[in-house]
């Protein structure tokens, strides 16, 4: 059996190499930290895993129709508290084994295993209750309550039971670098590159033979490399590079629907920053217009700017954005100084002191953001320095971000970052006491109450109003200094055809991609 599976796997790869010489290289924001979809934390992780795994159900990138490539049929069961799913036959894992109901139930049970540390699984545990195989291809997925349209909720990637010894899946397993999926590509992560080899299957017929994910460095180099056809795509093109690429007939700019907003998170445990007046002063010290101009290149008055200021944790077009909360577009240094004084700080020798000691803030920025907003870290530092606040700046690597900043162990006082969202724009994990992504352990009873109101809301208006209230409170208490939303654009060589970019997941329609010539 094992030999048969290995032969099948080999056949899949052989067919791949016999296909047209259609290789495609592209620049990502960064090398994914994991190829295990349960532990995907960065957008580059999510985009990479979309090539390797099938989600049970997904939305068509064009028509938004709810579709599945792996489900033959389904029916609602147990009065809406379960759904019976029959998987298609003939679908193989990249190790050659057949996809069965055992895999589906294994995935559900792995997400229900509370020993696992997956944030995504935690979210699924809020409504999944169990899974029973009812035949080789049929499984019953049970919920802890009646779900109005369960298929919409079941967008998780299916994992292979054969690759794990138990339902406890940890992020450091070899699977994270060399995963096995049923998706169109078999992925392998190296230090500098991730390669994806196409895998022929009953439900996927990709036309691209191999894809190479390379880490995007200097945006200018990325642009030149694309124009010279040494890579075929760039996932995230910074605004400064867009005009050059738009002017080329060899390149197509692609819209990538992703809701991303930028922030400076404030360590509210720092002796000076725990005082809300100091945080409010920082908010007035920032000259967002200058930051945007010097780092992203958007000048005041530019029409159709890709970068728009925000005053809370949502993009302006979101229903959750509270338009009554004003944005500080420029600095107000006299107000900032007044706030610092009223917080008990003194300016001595041109520098602000607290308890007789000059303040020194350690400011960090997630390093890969430097491509989209070059020099932002330095610009923020300069603005702090100009008013008399000492600062030490440092770029934060991906490892440091995961293991130190997000683990709440960093010694930074201010951290510049970006959060991205799709349809779901929930921010409770960022601001709730004990929230899984609450990087500085921020606590505010009023915020917690509002987030509970949001969770308990019965109607749309209750839910929306709760987040409007949250926006207002956060804009005053300032655990984050909110900066802007920045839209995301990709660029692909025109030889790459049929390249539909799916909102958020990106490569959902990769089977339609091909390379001309």
């Amino acid at each position: 059996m094992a030999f048969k599976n290995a032969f099948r796997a080999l056949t899949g790869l052989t067919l791949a190499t016999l296909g047209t010489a259609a290789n495609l290289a592209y620049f990502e924001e960064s090398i994914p930290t994991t190829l295990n979809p349960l532990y995907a934390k960065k957008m580059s992780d999510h985009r990479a895993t979309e090539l390797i795994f099938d989600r049970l159900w997904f939305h068509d990138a064009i028509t938004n129709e709810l579709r599945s490539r792996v489900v033959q049929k389904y029916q609602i069961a147990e009065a809406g508290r379960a759904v019976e799913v029959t998987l298609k036959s003939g679908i193989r894992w990249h190790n050659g084994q057949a996809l069965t109901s055992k895999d589906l139930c294994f995935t559900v049970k792995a997400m229900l295993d509370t020993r696992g540390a997956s944030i995504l699984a935690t979210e699924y545990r809020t409504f999944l209750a169990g899974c029973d195989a009812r035949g080789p291809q049929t499984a019953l997925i049970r919920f802890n309550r009646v779900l109005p349209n369960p298929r919409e909720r079941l967008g998780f990637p299916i994992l292979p039971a054969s690759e794990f010894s138990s339902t406890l899946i940890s992020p450091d397993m070899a699977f994270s670098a060399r995963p096995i999926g049923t998706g169109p590509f078999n992925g392998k992560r190296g230090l500098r590159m991730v390669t994806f080899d196409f895998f022929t299957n009953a439900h996927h017929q990709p036309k691209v033979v191999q894809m190479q994910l390379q880490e995007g460095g200097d945006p200018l180099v990325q642009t030149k490399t694309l124009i010279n056809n040494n890579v075929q795509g760039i996932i995230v093109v910074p605004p400064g590079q867009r005009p050059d690429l738009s002017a080329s007939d060899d390149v197509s700019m692609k819209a990538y629907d992703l809701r991303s907003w930028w922030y400076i998170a404030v360590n509210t445990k720092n002796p000076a920053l725990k005082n809300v007046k100091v945080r409010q002063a920082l908010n007035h010290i920032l000259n967002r217009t200058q930051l945007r101009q010097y780092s992203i290149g958007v000048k005041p008055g530019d029409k159709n700017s890709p970068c728009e200021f925000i005053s809370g944790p949502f993009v302006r077009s979101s229903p959750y954005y509270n338009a009554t909360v004003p944005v500080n577009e420029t600095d107000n240094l006299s107000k900032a100084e007044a706030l610092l004084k009223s917080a008990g700080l003194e300016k001595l020798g041109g520098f602000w002191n607290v308890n007789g000691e000059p303040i020194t803030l350690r400011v960090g920025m997630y390093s890969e953001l430097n491509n989209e907003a070059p020099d932002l870290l330095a610009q923020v530092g300069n603005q702090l320095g100009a008013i008399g606040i000492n600062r030490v700046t440092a770029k934060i690597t991906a490892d440091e971000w995961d293991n130190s900043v997000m683990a709440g162990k960093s010694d930074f006082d201010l951290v510049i970052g970006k959060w991205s969202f799709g349809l779901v724009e929930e921010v409770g994990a960022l601001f709730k006491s004990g929230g899984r992504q609450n990087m500085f352990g921020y606590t505010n009873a009023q915020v917690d109450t509002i987030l509970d109101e949001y969770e308990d809301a019965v109607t749309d208006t209750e839910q929306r109003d709760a987040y409007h209230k949250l926006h207002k409170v956060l804009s005053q208490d300032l655990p984050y200094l909110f900066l802007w939303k920045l839209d995301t654009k990709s660029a692909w060589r025109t030889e790459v055809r049929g390249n539909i970019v799916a909102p958020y997941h990106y490569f959902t329609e990769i089977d339609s991609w091909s390379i001309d010539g």
Partner: protein
Amino acid sequence: MMRLLVILLLPLGFGACSGETGNPSTDSSVATVEAIDGALLQKSWPARMANDEIRGPFEGHPGWRHFFSGDLNLALGAFAQSKHARGMARVHQLLSDLYAQGALLSANATAEAYGVDAVDTDPSEMAYVLGVSAVIRGDFAEAKARFDAVPPDSLVHERSVHWLAAIKDAAAIPELDVLVKISGSLGDVSPGTQPEVQSTPHFEFNERSEKARPMGANDPTALLSHSAWHAAAAKAAAPETDGSVLEQVGYRYAVEKRPEVKQPVLPLDDAWLFCSADLSPADTGFIATASSSGLDAVAEWSDRSPLAAALQSSIQDGRVEPQSVMDAAFALQKQLSATMADIGGGVQDFHRPFAIRARIAVLLAGMIVADANDQYRDAGILRLNALERMHAGGIEPVFALSVAAWDAGNRSPLRPEDILHQFGSSYPALVAAKAPLEALHLRRSRNAAPTTPVH
């Protein structure tokens, strides 16, 4: 002449973006690709306007300058100031299309949020909004049922009675006088001006929950009224001879199904064509035909219409091939660039934006034919490709709204929210479409697969 060109192109900043100089030059990299018969292409407005004398009147007029950069409000003001009848008529016609698409956006979002995803707590008065939405979506039986369900003691009962009367004998969106009787006066129709905009929300209905919270709601009738007002203004502004032109031009973004009539090639003044997705007068007739007859229209018009000719090779086995349409569009852009360089004696800055508009025009024509040929997804691919192509040169507001309406009909709220956010401040009446779109987002979000903030 160069100064005038700079003025024309300034709003889009193409010179700055491309890094090209304004000086004519011979560019050997412009390959001549025969996408369509060269004689046919010569009749297109971009080719003809490569000639300085033909382009001249458009370059110096501030109305066309604003029109070129997609600002319909400023364009209308400038045309009004110079009493440019066709300029005013064209902008009013586009504004009519814009608000009609806004109404469709509102209707689609309402039908999905409060129809498909209805919940018990929805105010009973939403039956009225659903009724108007059903009219806009062309489902008159549904509309009558919804209007009948409006509570007699509600704020909107009288409106529902008016609507029932309006659609009793004719299954059609009524005229301006009826619409304003329902949703309120917009002021007298006066070409070159804008109608009054009602503040939103139009109503507050109480949710049927324990808390009975007030919920803002808007009447899509107001958007239909704005559309009808601008249509009437276009008619009033246009020269008498242009009545049938207005009729034919209106097919492209018509919300209601229009009668299938034999379309002639009308003598279109360049004021109807400049910067248009119709490259020649025959294209206007072709698009009006294609919206109902699809593939047959391509065969019928390909000897007259540059767009139909460009699409011909993309029809394979009775279907529109989207990738082939994209190739044809690019080929036309290249051919047009070469043609303009020939006419103008070298490459000039305005050639590229003009040629890109022609490329987009082919994509839009392919989309219309695919839609009429029941190729919904393929039409969607072309629709989104056209939108992407517009990003560099400025998105046309009417097309953007039509994409938003289409998305809302697909239960997809994010792109429509972004589009409405982009254009809502310029065209404030559109804000009436925001509430149902937000409801669609909230309802879909509550039942979506979980995700977490990602860095």
